[in-house]
């Protein structure tokens, strides 16, 4: 066993072996594999979060964890919060905190008595940023109409009105693949579809959102001549690898550069709204204070009776971005949107609707 001529041979043999089994045998194997994968995942969760947090509160001698924010932890300007404290062994990254699990791990992080936990997450942030900087009219239209982007994309991609779940998922995967510099091969792998179909889908995508590809070409050319990429906020990322003789190294640098222009912009938008919001909380005499930022979201703790005022300010800062307009004179072509949740803990938030910028509490 294990003497394969090339990569796909194992897959072929595996398929034919599977084909020779009885249905009962396959059912059994399926349950075993599923169970095993679940077990591995949840054992990892227990080890990272339950044990990690236990160690941290023991070390801190109080029921708190302390996060260490780093401005220089990433090359895109995203913040990283490295560890609870100096001891690396206790590092529990919020960035990998799972959102939906049977056992709600997020709920171990709570607001103190009399306060609530607010989590406000930018919705589809990276694609909004991409549609703005790439000046991609079709995609901007979707955001301006407030449509569900992935369904909208799938409609254009498959040229029909009714979209299945799988088709929406494909559209979503393609969009993110483009952002992260993937190709037809990755699409075929992740979605389990034939290579030829994947190629066709990506070709269609070029017709649906031509602006994105023009932008990609522009960025690639720019990086090749200047060996750096820059974001609309003026952040720069040097990419000396683009001068390498190794094609795969060059391609990686180009992917990193393209992703940088998007992700770095997204993270700076978050930084601006965080700063703006915490300033305005103070000015308004509110006790609300940010406690963490994870990816494209801001987590805030505020007293129960201040929820409405806090949410109003937060919504305005995040969605109408006055700080960015004032400081950088940047106006986005697409509206920004957030999903805000309020609850007793990080994990049990209820979605809050906003009407005309005011929360309906």
């Amino acid at each position, binding site marked *: 066993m294990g003497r*394969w001529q090339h990569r796909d041979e194992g897959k072929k043999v595996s398929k034919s072996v599977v*084909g020779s089994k009885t249905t009962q045998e396959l059912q059994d194997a399926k349950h075993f594999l*599923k169970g095993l994968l679940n*077990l591995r995942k949840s054992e990892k969760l227990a080890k990272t979060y339950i044990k990690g947090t236990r160690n941290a509160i023991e070390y801190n001698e109080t*029921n708190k964890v302390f*996060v260490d924010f780093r401005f220089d932890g990433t090359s895109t300007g995203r913040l990283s919060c490295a560890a609870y404290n100096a001891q690396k062994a206790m590092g529990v990254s919020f960035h990998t905190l799972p959102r939906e699990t049977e056992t709600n791990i997020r709920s171990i992080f709570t607001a103190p008595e009399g306060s609530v936990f607010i989590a406000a997450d930018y919705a589809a942030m990276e694609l909004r940023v991409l549609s703005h900087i790439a000046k991609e009219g079709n995609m901007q239209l979707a955001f301006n109409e407030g449509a569900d982007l992935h369904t909208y994309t799938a409609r254009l991609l498959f040229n029909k009105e009714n979209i299945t779940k799988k088709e929406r998922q494909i559209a979503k995967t393609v969009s993110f693949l483009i952002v992260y510099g993937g190709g037809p091969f990755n699409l075929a792998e992740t979605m389990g579809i034939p290579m030829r179909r994947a190629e066709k889908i990506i070709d269609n995508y070029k017709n649906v959102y031509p602006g994105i590809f023009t932008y990609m070409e522009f960025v690639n050319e720019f990086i090749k001549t200047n060996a750096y990429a820059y974001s609309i906020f*003026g952040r720069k990322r040097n990419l000396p690898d683009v001068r390498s003789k190794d094609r795969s190294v060059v391609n990686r640098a180009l992917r990193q550069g393209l992703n940088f222009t998007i992700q770095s912009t997204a993270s700076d938008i978050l930084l601006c709204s965080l700063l703006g919001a915490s300033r305005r909380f103070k000015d308004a005499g509110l006790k609300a204070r940010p406690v963490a930022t994870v990816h494209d979201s801001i987590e805030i703790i505020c007293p129960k009776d201040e929820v409405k005022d806090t949410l109003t300010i937060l919504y305005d800062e995040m969605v109408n971005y006055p700080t960015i307009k004032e400081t950088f004179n940047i106006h986005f072509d697409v509206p920004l949107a957030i999903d805000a949740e309020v609850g007793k803990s990080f994990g049990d938030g209820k979605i809050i609707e906003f009407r005309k910028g005011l929360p309906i509490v």
Partner: protein
Amino acid sequence: MYKLIEKIVMPSLETFADMEYHGLDVDPKVLETVGRQLNTKNMNEEDYLYTCKSVKKTDNLSSNNDLIEVLYTREGGMELFPPDKTASGKPSVSAPTLKLLLEHIDEELASRG
């Protein structure tokens, strides 16, 4: 870039210092409850796996060698074929490989209706 540092990054340090200073509250009761739930779930899952026909009581499911036996090599067991191998040439039992196996099984089951 200067503008970004001067107007945004530097002023926001105060906010971040504040966040680091105050920390984040953990509810020890919830921590224990969630920990227990997760443990029970894992134990149940493990018990279930040991009831599968081709698994022996002596198998260690977190050992790759034992898993290779259970999935691929043991006679009268599942006797599947590994879709992929590790860098050293052993049959792979990594998550992506197992997912691939699942996919093959699902496809086959779907084609049988």
